[in-house]
């Protein structure tokens, strides 16, 4: 969440906030415009380019048969990875993923896994020997804030358009990856006692605390992550959860349930 931001800009955002306004004129719980373009990478089994305001995230899905984990011999494997490539932000550096990238990948993974969106048992080919491995690779292209929500949205959108490449591996005909749920992540920051959803990059950099809530189509909470060195009151958490459920439903209905 570190970013180059001047004290003047910080003051500016804070003064606006006292008047109940945000830099780009949104209300505190309003998301930026969302666009999702699917199947943008032909070589991938599934893909989605998500734009959340000016933030851009590309998620690609690759699948291949491989060995299952020893303790889950009848289940497919999901591996989620995120690249915060230096092209996306002056704050990203080349090299192995840092803790921010690892956290991002793990929270995206948590949404997909804990919602049980993918039926892992259906991905078993030969029990104990061969299962499908799904690689969810998140590529951040432009970090204008809240890339976590964009990445989660990208992951589920890409999965929704994923075709299992069975014929390439001599395992019958290709088929669409069946999904059981559509998890949606919504993130809010806390700053000066105000809760702001879908923070922009400046808002993110002044906030001490961020809370991400992932909800399922049934309106259950399937994952959560507080991030940042600040604190939250229980009432603030409950409020974020309430609004998050509602926002997630809107986003799911509008962009993911075709």
């Amino acid at each position, binding site marked *: 969440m570190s970013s180059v931001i001047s004290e003047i800009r910080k003051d500016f955002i804070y003064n606006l906030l006292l008047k109940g306004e945000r830099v780009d004129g949104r209300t505190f719980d309003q998301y930026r415009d969302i666009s999702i373009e699917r199947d943008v990478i032909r070589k991938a089994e599934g893909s989605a380019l998500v734009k959340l305001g000016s933030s851009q995230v590309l998620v690609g899905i690759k699948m291949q048969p491989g060995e299952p984990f020893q303790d889950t011999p009848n289940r497919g494997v999901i591996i989620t990875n995120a690249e915060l490539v230096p092209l996306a932000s002056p704050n990203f550096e080349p090299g192995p993923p840092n803790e921010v990238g690892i956290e991002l990948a793990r929270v995206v993974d948590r949404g997909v896994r804990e919602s049980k969106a993918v039926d892992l048992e259906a991905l078993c080919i030969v029990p104990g020997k061969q299962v499908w491995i799904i690689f969810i690779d998140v590529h951040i292209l432009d970090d204008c804030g809240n890339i976590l929500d964009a990445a989660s949205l990208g992951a589920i959108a890409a999965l929704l358009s994923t075709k299992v490449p069975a014929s390439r591996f001599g395992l019958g005909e290709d088929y669409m990856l069946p999904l059981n749920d559509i998890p949606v992540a919504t993130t809010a920051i806390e700053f000066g006692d105000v809760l702001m959803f879908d923070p922009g990059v400046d808002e993110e950099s002044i906030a001490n605390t961020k809370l991400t809530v992932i909800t399922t189509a049934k*309106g*259950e*909470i399937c994952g959560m992550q*507080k991030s940042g060195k600040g604190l939250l009151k*229980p009432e603030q958490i*409950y409020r974020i*959860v*309430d609004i998050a459920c509602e926002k997630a439903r809107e986003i799911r209905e509008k962009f993911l349930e075709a």
Partner: protein
Amino acid sequence: MDKSDISFFKDGLRLDGRRADQLRPIRIEVGVLARADGSCYIEMGGNKVIAAVYGPREVHPRHLQEVTRAIVRYRYNMASFSVEERKRPGPDRRSYELSKVSREALEPVIMTSYFPRSVIDVFVEVLQADAGTRTAGINAAAVALADAGIPMKSMISSCAAGKVADTIVLDPMKEEDNFGQADLPIAMTPGGDITLMQMDGGLSPDEFHQAVEMAMKGARDIYEMQRAALVEKYGKIEASTIEVNACE
């Protein structure tokens, strides 16, 4: 083993005989390491975790130093023999994430502005794991920070709630964590400000409220134990300091 092979409750009690809202036995020892500036050993049920604090001290590499405050580093590490199946030594993605959120759970109360250009290092070693290692680590680390004399606005106490067999339970043990329906670790100040919050599994909004309240109650009880452990070590010294102050 399948989920259906386990019955989590017998006569209303859990596998280890606890009630739904009961913590596992906890033992906290302050100042267990000679070389560290502060240290703490904690047992929470089957978890055995040791925490050491070094600092404030000089930052290496130096480009990490901050002009206006101390930086805090937190390293969560699991011993390879701490789990059933040997864990490959060294950090993995999970430990990177846990280190980050644990550090962020403690940073809000550490008065870092007292020590510009320096670092406060917190090292947490999980020697034996039985679900809830991050909360045990945070509890030990908070006590170790106090033991090191680091100025803090308050203590931090951490506890998880979970859901097994459609029941919200406090401080899940390994079986309940592995085959349970949800896990919700939190950390908080004695005043009830939340500094760590994670969740995985499935909870309705109502269950979530219930779980948060239960975990907060658990954390409050742990706070009393942390406090008692510190008073046991420092209680007498504290009294003598008061005398000195009175003379001045």
